[in-house]
């Protein structure tokens, strides 16, 4: 733990990170179950918020990892707003291309409500490999799984393609020694 954390007397430092991670994992798990049972992606998206917030707070090292963690939280909040207010926006038409190269992945563009969770899954996968802390890695795994569940609920057909995309990306990273 850094010196800054040790001097900070708030709940996040007084409670061991293991227990906090366990707490947000349980919350995310409950959200996932509720989402899969009710087929409403809002459950998993809202219940991922504690994990995303804690991830954004905990991620310290590296300019790209901190930025990714904060961006992840912003996208999660935006995705919730898009789903609640039923906002549709065709990114493919907006950019005039069918896919975009982001963080090492060629992500297919389409409606923004599908692209959001796909971007979440991509960013969290990125954090799994880039971040050094075992707790931030733990949180990234939770968010990655939660994003895949969201994609499955919004678009089950696209879920298979998203899974292929993530697994291919993982293979490539393993091959390149990330």
């Amino acid at each position, binding site marked *: 733990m850094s010196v800054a954390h040790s001097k900070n007397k708030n709940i996040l430092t007084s409670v061991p990170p293991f227990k906090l991670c366990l*707490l947000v994992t349980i919350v995310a798990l409950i959200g996932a179950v509720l989402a899969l049972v009710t087929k409403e992606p809002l459950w998993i998206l809202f219940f991922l918020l504690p994990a995303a917030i804690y991830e954004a707070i905990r991620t310290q090292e590296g300019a790209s990892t901190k930025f990714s963690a904060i961006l992840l939280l912003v996208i999660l909040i935006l995705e919730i707003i898009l789903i609640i207010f039923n906002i*549709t926006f065709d990114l493919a038409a907006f950019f005039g291309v069918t896919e975009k190269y982001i963080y090492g992945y060629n992500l297919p563009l389409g409606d923004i409500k*599908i692209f959001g969770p796909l971007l979440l899954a991509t960013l969290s996968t990125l954090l799994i490999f880039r971040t050094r802390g075992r707790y931030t890695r733990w949180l990234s795994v939770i968010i990655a799984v939660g994003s895949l569940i969201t994609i499955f609920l919004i678009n089950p057909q696209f879920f298979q393609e998203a899974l292929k995309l993530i697994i291919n990306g993982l293979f490539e990273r393993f091959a390149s020694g990330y």
Partner: protein
Amino acid sequence: MSESTTPKSESNTKLEEEPLPHQSQEIEDSEHKKHSQSSAGQFPSLIWIGIGVLAFLTIAVLVGLQLQKYFNHDSSSKFSIQQDSISNSKPTTTPTTQPLSKEDVLRQAFSYPESTDVPDANEVFCVRLVMYTNDSVTTVYRYYEELIDLNGWYTGPVGMQTGDESAFFHIYQDDFNADLYLTTEASEHGNTKIEVDISCKNEDAITSTFNRPTTVTNVGDTTQPTPPPDHLSTEITADLPQSEYILPFSNSRKITKEDLVGLSPWELKVARNEIYARHGRPFVHQDLTCYFAKQDWYTLDNNYTEDRLSSLETTNAVFILDYEKEINSPLLNEDSGCS
């Protein structure tokens, strides 16, 4: 030596000597006790924090779901308005017809204008369309792109192959999924093959809108484009024998939807107006004037009045007009002129 100093001296003695095993165990036990007491103090507070977070998030989700239902109600009401406008266009004398089934709605929505529909046996999808057109893949791609934009459908991967020889769309809606494949394939029916595989979801519920683009925008390409409307009637009339009616029975029996499915927009326009033409009606649209002038059976009567039509003929004319509106016929109010 006082009693108060005794423990100290004892402890000093202890420090100078190695602590006895049971004494070091006591020290460890007391430290462990302190740690577990602080952990035990944290544990209930952690549970309360967890419960509080869960309660807050649950309330947030429930509020979000209510808001989502409210905003989604607006988009589902668009279809009911669309349905209402179709049903309201029918006059009271129109015979009662079966409302369009979900398959029919999907079939009409995805039909490419002026294409040749090739029957294809299918047991997997609720709707499977195989169509051919002379328009290029790019033109057809733009048409379906506009169709998707017009209705705000959710799409997955879409794309066009380099060289514009093939393209695809994947559409994912709550009430249907559709996969569209466009390929350059020369055949007797046309140069571009359009395959549409539609899986119906949520049984018969229809929540999507199905507005269709009114025109096909030809993108500059080297393949033969669909002729513009002013040539359309020439091609169609050239194929029709000059003394034949499109619907010869339109003055003798009620027309059904089966009689109209498969007719091109021009044929529908002619079929509707030949009911009037039988009685010598003069036409305002030049394309109809020129067409009927070539018919052996047509005799222009400048004294024509609407009351010459029987109620059956009026009903049939309105029925065809409603069908043209349902399929968004591009020739409904369009005068394609004489050739």
